[in-house]
């Protein structure tokens, strides 16, 4: 930083302008590090503070009250909400466990399938750009609409196909049992997420130097070996990004959950975000809900930090 300023001061333009004294002081003020910081980062911080940071700190305050979301005064209860959550609310633990299981499966499948698609579509196929588009297409749907559409497919469409084909896969009570509802959510999440990650993986694969692969082919390496020993280590930065994106999104799943299963059957597919929403707005316990949100935030931060650390350590410099 110090070097940077020196180089600017040495600059011919600035030297010339220093002859006009007033101009130069204004200019120096404008180009000062402080001004630059304010100009470039200021607006982002401003919006971030208004929309995220300040409400978040409000949330911390509410998490220590028994506010119901309506009444005029919020009663301070200290850390009571947190002890209630840990000691008396097994449903929160269950929804946490469900979300963790769901995230694990969905993130692995999304990434494996996304990568496989990307690998497939990095081959010089004739129709690859059209097919890439098709795989990405589910992303034009928002979570809410996505849930409605799949509800229609699972409730109306699948039994219809089942009648025609007599395949038991289509006649399962898709949203009716614990296991099938879980997998229904996974299917929909993969249907949408895999195409998104595919695009990022395609980008990562494009950066793998061709000559490296050609060289190893000459060395007699098999396809699998090339994939394992050359391609995957080289695209670890991409893996870091994809895992980060998919973990943080899957963990926060709300819209899809809300519109597809609403947490059913018997609350077995209730995600943490939905549990929080129901606590705050359904049970009128806003304070408790924000306390849950805070715990959730800490947990997700912790998990993503570990993930980024783990995958970062496996990245190699190209």
């Amino acid at each position, binding site marked *: 930083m110090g070097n940077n300023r020196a180089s600017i001061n040495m600059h011919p333009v600035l030297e010339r302008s220093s002859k006009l004294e007033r101009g130069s002081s204004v200019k120096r003020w404008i180009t000062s590090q402080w001004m630059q910081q304010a100009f470039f980062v200021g607006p982002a911080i401003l919006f971030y503070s208004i929309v995220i940071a300040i409400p978040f700190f409000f949330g911390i305050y509410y998490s220590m009250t028994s506010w*119901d979301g309506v009444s005029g005064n919020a009663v301070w209860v200290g850390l009571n909400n947190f002890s209630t959550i840990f000691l008396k609310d097994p*449903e929160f633990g269950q929804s946490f466990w469900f979300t963790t299981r769901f995230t694990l499966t969905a993130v692995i499948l999304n990434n494996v399938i996304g990568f496989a698609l990307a690998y497939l579509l990095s081959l010089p196929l004739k129709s690859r750009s059209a097919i890439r588009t098709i795989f990405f297409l589910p992303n034009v749907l928002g979570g809410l609409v996505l849930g409605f559409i799949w509800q229609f497919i699972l409730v109306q469409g699948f039994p219809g196909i089942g009648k025609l084909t007599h395949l038991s896969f289509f006649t399962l009570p898709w949203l009716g049992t614990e296991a099938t509802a879980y997998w229904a959510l996974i299917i929909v999440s993969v249907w949408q997420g895999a195409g998104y990650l595919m695009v990022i993986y395609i980008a990562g694969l494009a950066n793998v130097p061709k000559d490296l692969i050609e060289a190893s082919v000459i060395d007699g390496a098999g396809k699998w070996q090339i994939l394992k020993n050359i391609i995957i280590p080289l695209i670890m930065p991409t893996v870091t990004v994809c895992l980060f994106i998919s973990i943080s999104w899957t963990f926060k799943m709300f819209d899809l959950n809300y519109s597809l299963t609403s947490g*059913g*059957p018997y609350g077995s597919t209730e995600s943490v975000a939905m549990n929080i929403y129901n606590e705050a*707005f359904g049970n009128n316990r806003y304070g408790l809900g924000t306390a849950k949100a805070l715990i959730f935030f800490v947990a997700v931060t912790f998990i993503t930090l570990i993930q980024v650390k783990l995958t970062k350590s496996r990245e190699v410099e190209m």
Partner: protein
Amino acid sequence: MKRSFIISCVLVLMCCLLAACGANSNSGANTGNDAAGTGGSNAQKEVTIKLYQQKVEIAEQLKVLKAEYEKTHPGVKIEIESVLSSQYGTKLKAKLAANEMPDIFNNGGYSDMDVWADHLEDLTDQPWVSDAVDSAKAPMMKDGKLYGFPLSLEGSGLVYNKDMFAKAGITELPKTLSELEEASKKLKAQGYTPFVNDYASVWDLGITIFDSFMAKVPDTDKFIADLNSGAATFAGNDVFKGLPKYLDIAMKNGNPNPLTTDYNTSMTMFATGQGAMIPAGNWIQPLVDKINPNIQAGLMPMPVSDDADFNKNAVFTSPTVWVVNKNSPVKEQAKEFLNWLVTSDIGKQYVAKEFKLVPAFKSIKADPADVGSIGADLTKFSEEGNSLPMQASKMPEGLYTEIAQSMQKYVAGKSTPDQMLAEFQASWNKLKK
């Protein structure tokens, strides 16, 4: 490049300002009503009454009504927002947080009344109070004062297909659980599916079915107080012994995959004759009519035990209630509007005919042709004195969801009757205030 960039920056800022002005233009409600506080008779300045309500079924009719009212009441504008019940509460809280509270809004009564107590205007002195049906006022009474305006009555129980019952030779409506099973056999013999079970809907399980049992408990208020103090349990209550029995009968004689059948699917099934009975109420009439206008549906009490006398009065009613915002500057005009609705000829006409709801006022008689066959049955039960008030809104908020989940678990075969009742108990203990 850079010039166009700067220009676009400026444009963004300008347009943001413009958008702000444009969207702000219709906020007349909280301005210019100095006169309102002093009694409301002075209508020189224009005032806007904001009505925020959750009966989307009457959204269209309300628009026409609004025009009628504005014609006869110069200076008063009504702004109506009709929102689905699933979004209603969250949006109302957002309005409150943003200090944009409506002047008239919905309230569920009892515990919901307590939550919103700071915002409710005392309506005890209103001219329509003596005319309103007592059972409709009950949920909004506190310390002898009335805080709500009952727009209509709703009743629930088992809705059944009259044609199917006739074809199956069921002349007497089943009054006990055994008779219900008997009737199911007759329906099955005709090739009908006796029950439509929409157990994906937490509403129907946790409110319609659960409440049919809750309301039958003798001295419900004491039972609720005892549940709160720990003196009573669900497992120790005789009435709730019937709940797993009812669920068993309904499951044995119901549609496949009840846990994937949601409210809307079940409506379609019932309306298209894929089932003869469904736990529901008169609110399903418009939906069912839309799918099959020729259906003849009726309402009967849901049997909860094998004692016929005990099951006689078992249609449960709850009112749809509008409340007036105590802190509203136009509350006098809002009260005047409510009064007009049930005392003027035009208003009465709408309540009785256009809304297709069962009115909660003695002087407004609904024609069966207007309220539909389910509503007509409801009126009959209620006039004969065979109705009980609904209990759902006396229970802890959010309880019905957890209750429904426990019931889902039971019908999925994941718990025993005892476990289900124990889970009810655990949910109650967790959520009680």
